[in-house]
């Protein structure tokens, strides 16, 4: 569980500093995956059931729609 927490911190850092927004969305999804496992290990299946579709399905998809409509690379 601590390894997963560390992985989530690394993924969050990479998502924040990434200039390519598509990669940033993927890093944020990686952080969500580690959170899913942490919630499951903490015995919260209700949260897992709501976290998988929201954080791995709907949220990255909405961001991808917006990235497609605006632009892929962040300006300096």
């Amino acid at each position: 569980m601590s390894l997963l927490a560390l992985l989530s911190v690394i993924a969050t850092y990479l998502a924040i500093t990434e200039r390519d927004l598509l990669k940033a969305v993927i890093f944020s999804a990686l952080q969500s995956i580690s959170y899913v496992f942490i919630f499951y290990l903490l015995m919260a299946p209700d949260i897992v059931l709501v976290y998988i579709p929201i954080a791995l399905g709907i949220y990255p998809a909405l961001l991808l729609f917006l990235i497609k409509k605006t632009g892929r690379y962040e300006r300096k």
Partner: protein
Amino acid sequence: MNISYRFIGLLLLIAMILAISICTTISNVGFNIPHDIKYLSRWVIYSSYLVTTPIFSSMVPEIVNAVIWDYRGIDTFFETSVFYIAIIAAIALFREVKIELVKEYQYLGLSKIVKTVTKTLLVIGLGAAISIALHGHITPGGGFQAGSILASLLLIVIIVFSVHFILMKGLTKNLAIIIRSIGLIGLVSAIFIPILLSLIMNTYGFVFQNQPKVMSPLGLSYVADGHVLSAMVLLLNIFEFLAIFAGFLIIFILLSRPTKELEN
């Protein structure tokens, strides 16, 4: 930003986290985790399903659903209202966009292999979502979980088959708005019917009254033909399921339109 700077920052971050965690575990500085359950949670676990005295219980075997729909029902109600208002804002932003139905567009989308896999997945996922909604009071899950699972499935369908496919099949924005309104009207009526009944029957009634209480005899039966139904929680889960999945579907239909179409 240079790549080497990023990795130096990352290493510093990891070193900081490890240092803090090692210090807190070795010297026992961090928060002390209590070894027994707190009084409130023990009471909630104890009283969520009491067959002998249903008057003091919410009669929901699944404790999370007992909390979100019975003990803390108004929280969940306001959460649903916030979601409702947010989607009203989205509809208002896209109010002048007219959706044109072109018959040829429904054959767009990804390859045939992906479409076949998605069709199979849709059947399985639909079953899973409905069972999570209907069993929310017994097993982990509930209306919001099931609604978001079905919404993400429909999102996959939108990506694989294109929006026009869903619109041609009859699942339009207006139908989604109607489903969502049915869900919310059902939620509100299930919440406020005990009060109206109490005015008619000249007894006491409460908002979100699930089971009969000491002073008021109102409430649906929690068991039917040997099956635990947790009457009002089941109803609320179904209505929440309808409201949530239709709400997300509206946003997807609005957002997944090409930019050129929106500019026209």
